[in-house]
C-alpha cells in the first residue's frame, strides 16, 4: 500500500505522460494485488484486466493521438488546489477516527445484511461464489445498470470519435509508431502471440462459465476476450483484426448482450415474479437461479467484450 502511495506521488510529479500512464498501470496492478490480499479475488481479477489492461491501452492510444509531454505550467496556481486537497484530506481523516479498526470482525457491516448472503445464498441461489450470487441475483439490478454504463460508454465513444470524417485515410496510428514497427518485425512476438491468442480466448470462455464456482464471471471474461483481440490488433494490424470482427457485428453483440440481460429480467416478470426474479425461470428455485445467472453473465460478457472492442477500435482508427 505504501508502494501505491509512492507511485501516486510519482505520477503527480512526472511530466512525461507516457511514463505517467505506465505508472498508472502499475498502480492499478498493485491495487489488484492488494485486493487479493484483502480477499477480494473477483475484484482483483477485474481490476487487473480493466484497470491495468484496458484503461492503460486506451490512455496510450490517446497519448499517441495527442501529445506525450505535459507542458510545465509556469504559474504557481496549484496552491489553492493543494489547500483544498489538504482540507478534504483532513476532513476524511477526521471521518476515519470513528471507523471500526481494520479487519475488525465486529464492525457493523459484517453483522447487518451481509451475513445473510453468506449464510443463505447457498440454499437460495445455490452457487458457491457468493460474490457472483450477489452480483447477478441479489443485486442483479445494479449489475444491469453497470452493463448499461459500459454500453453507454461504448455508444458514447462511437458518437464522439466514431465515423471519422470522409476523405481521411483509415490508417492506424497506434501507440508510438516505432514500437509498433518493432513489434511487427519481431517474428517471435508474432508467433508467440498467434499461439497465445487462442488460449486467451479459451481462457475467457472458461472464466465466463466458471464464475459460479470460482472467481470470474461475465465482466472478467468479456474483458479478457476483448484483450485477446486487442493484442492481435496491437501486434498485427487494426484493419486485419477489423476483418475478423466487423464493426456491425460488434455493435449487434453490444446491443444483444444488454438485451439478453434485461430480457431475462422481463421473462422473470412474465412468469409471475418481479423483474429479474430468476427463481421462476425453472420449477426449482436454485435451478432457476442458476440458469438466470448463467444467462445474464453471458449477456454481461457479450456486452463487455463488444464494448471493449468497440472502444478500442474506435480509438485505434483515429487519425492524428
Amino acid at each position: 500500500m505504501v508502494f501505491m502511495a509512492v507511485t501516486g506521488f510519482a505520477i503527480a510529479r512526472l511530466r512525461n505522460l507516457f511514463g505517467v500512464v505506465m505508472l498508472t498501470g502499475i498502480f492499478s496492478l498493485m491495487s489488484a494485488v492488494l485486493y487479493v490480499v484483502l480477499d477480494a479475488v473477483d475484484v482483483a481479477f477485474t481490476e487487473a484486466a480493466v484497470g491495468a489492461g484496458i484503461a492503460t491501452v486506451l490512455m496510450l492510444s490517446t497519448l499517441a493521438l495527442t501529445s506525450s509531454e505535459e507542458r510545465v505550467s509556469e504559474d504557481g496556481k496549484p496552491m489553492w488546489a493543494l489547500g483544498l486537497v489538504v482540507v478534504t484530506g483532513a476532513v476524511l481523516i477526521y471521518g476515519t477516527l470513528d471507523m471500526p479498526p481494520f479487519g475488525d470482525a465486529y464492525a457493523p457491516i459484517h453483522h447487518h445484511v451481509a451475513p445473510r448472503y453468506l449464510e443463505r445464498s447457498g440454499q437460495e441461489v445455490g452457487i458457491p461464489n457468493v460474490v457472483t450470487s450477489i452480483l447477478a441475483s441479489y443485486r442483479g439490478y445494479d449489475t444491469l445498470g453497470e452493463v448499461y454504463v459500459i454500453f453507454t460508454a461504448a455508444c458514447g465513444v462511437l458518437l464522439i470519435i466514431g465515423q471519422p470524417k470522409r476523405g481521411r485515410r483509415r490508417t492506424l496510428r497506434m501507440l508510438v509508431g516505432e514500437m509498433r514497427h518493432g513489434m511487427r518485425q519481431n517474428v517471435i512476438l508474432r508467433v508467440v502471440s498467434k499461439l497465445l491468442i487462442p488460449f486467451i480466448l479459451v481462457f475467457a470462455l472458461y472464466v465466463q462459465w466458471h464464475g459460479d464456482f470460482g472467481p470470474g464471471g461475465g465482466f472478467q471474461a468479456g474483458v479478457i476476450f476483448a484483450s485477446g483481440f486487442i493484442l492481435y490488433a496491437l501486434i498485427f494490424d487494426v484493419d486485419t483484426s477489423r476483418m475478423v470482427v466487423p464493426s456491425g457485428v460488434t455493435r449487434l453483440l453490444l446491443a444483444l448482450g444488454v438485451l439478453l440481460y434485461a430480457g431475462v429480467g422481463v421473462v422473470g416478470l412474465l412468469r409471475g415474479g418481479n423483474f429479474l426474479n430468476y427463481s421462476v425461470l425453472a420449477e426449482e428455485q436454485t435451478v432457476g437461479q442458476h440458469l438466470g445467472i448463467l444467462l445474464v453473465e453471458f449477456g454481461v460478457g457479450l456486452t463487455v467484450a463488444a464494448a471493449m472492442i468497440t472502444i478500442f477500435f474506435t480509438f485505434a482508427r483515429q487519425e492524428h
Partner: protein
Amino acid sequence: MAAHYPALQVVLALLAAPVCLILRRPNAAWAVATVITWISLALALSLLGRVWETGVILYPMGDWAAPWGIEYQIDTVNAFMLVIVTLIGSVVMPFARASVEAEIEEERIYLFYCMYLLNLAGLLGIAITGDVFNLFVFLEISSLSSYVMISLGRDKRALTAAYRYLVMGTIGATFYLIGVGMMYMMTGTLNMADLATILPAVADSRTVMVALGFLTVGLGLKLALFPLHLWLPNAYAYAPSAVTVFLAATGTKVAVYAFIRIFFTVFGGVEIFTAGVIPEILAVLAALAMIGASAVAIYQTDVKRLLAYSSIAQIGYMVLGISMVTVTGLAGTIVHLFNHAIMKGGLFMAMGCILFKIGSVQLDQFEGLGKRMPVTMAAFVAGGFSLIGVPLTVGFVSKWYLVQAALEKGWWLAVAVILVSSLMAVIYIWRVVEVAYFRPPPKGSAEVSEAPLSMLVPLWILIGASYYFGIDATRTLDIAFAAAESLFGGPL
C-alpha cells in the same frame, strides 16, 4: 401487469436503447424513442395516481426483499419526479426531430436517440430507487450519457464543456461514493429506509458526519450548487438544443431530488441535519447563487448562457427551500422543481427554434426577432414572465411559497434575496425583449420565418403548461405539500 409498472418505468427505456442501436436508422430510432417516452409518461402518471390513492409502492427487484436486494420505493415525492422527467422527456421528442436533424450529422442521429433513452432511464432510475448504491449506478448512466450528448454541440466549446463536466461530475460521483461507503461502514446497509432506521444510533460518530458532508458536496456538484456550478453554463450553452432543453429541465432537478432524499429520508431521523450548521451553509450558498448567478446572467451576450446562469440562480431557490427545513419550504422546492422544469424547458426550446432559424443565439442576432419569429418570441416573453415570477405563471407560485416559508421562518434576508433575485430576472429578460421588439430587423432579413410546427407545438405546450399550472396550482401544490409532509414523516 400494473404491479410491474415500477420496473417497467425504467426498464422500457433501457430495453429501447439497444434497439435503437440495432435499428441504425434515424427515423426508426426517433420513432422508438418517442413511443417509449410517451409510454413512460403514461406509466409515471399511473404510478403517481396509485401512490396518491394507496400510499407507498414497494417493488423488490428479483423478489429479493430489501435490504438484501434492491428495492424500488415510490412515494409521492419520487412519483412526482418521475412525472416531471417523463413529461419533459416526451414533450422534447417531437421537438427534437427537426432540431436534432439540423444540429447533428445524420449518421450519428440513431446513436443520439440511444443516448437520450439511456439518459432518460438513468434519471428515472435515480428518481425511483430506494437504494443508495443503485442510485450511484444510475447516476453514472445518466451522467455519462449527458457528457456525450453535450459534446455533440456544434460549437467546439461543447467539447471542453463536456470534458469539464465529466471531470467535475466524476469527482462528484466519487465523493458520493465515499459518502455511501462511510455510511455503509457504520450501518452495514445500503437501503435508504434501512439506513434511516439505523443511522440515528450512530449519528454522532464523526464518520457519519463526514459521510453527510461528502454526500452533500458530491450531489452539490451534480446539481450545480454554487460554487460547484462551474460546469453548467458552458454545458448548457453549447449542447445541442434538444439536449439543453432536456438536461436543463430534468438533470439538475433529479439531483436536487436526490439531495432531498438523502437529507430528509436517509438522514430523516438524525438531528445533525436539522440542528446542525449544514442548513445555514446551504442557505448562504443558495443566496449567493441567487444573487451572483443572476448578476452574471445580466452581462451575458449569449442568450443560452444567460438562461444557464439563470438556472443556477433558480437552483439557488430550490436549495434555499431545502435549507429552511420546514414543510412549506420543502413544498416550495418540490413545486419549483416542476415549475422550473416546464418554464426553463420552454425557454430553451425557444432558443432551439431561434438556433434552428437564425443559427445563433447571440443577443445582437435578436434584432427585430419579435417581427421575424413572432410565435417563438411570444413564447420566450411568456416564459420570461414566468422566470420573473409574474402572477398567473408557475414562477409566481413557487416564489409565493418560498417567500411564505421564509416569512414563517423569520428569515428576512432570505425574503429580500428572493425578491431581489426576481428583480434581476426582470433585467436580464428585458434586455432580450428590448432587442427583439424595439430594434428593427437587420436589412435584408426575411420577413417572417418561423420554426416548423413540430418545434413550435412542444414549445407552446410547455409555455402553456407554465400558465395552466400557474393559474390552477392547487393540484401541483397538493402533491408538493403531501410530498413534503411525507418527507418529514420519517422513513418510508
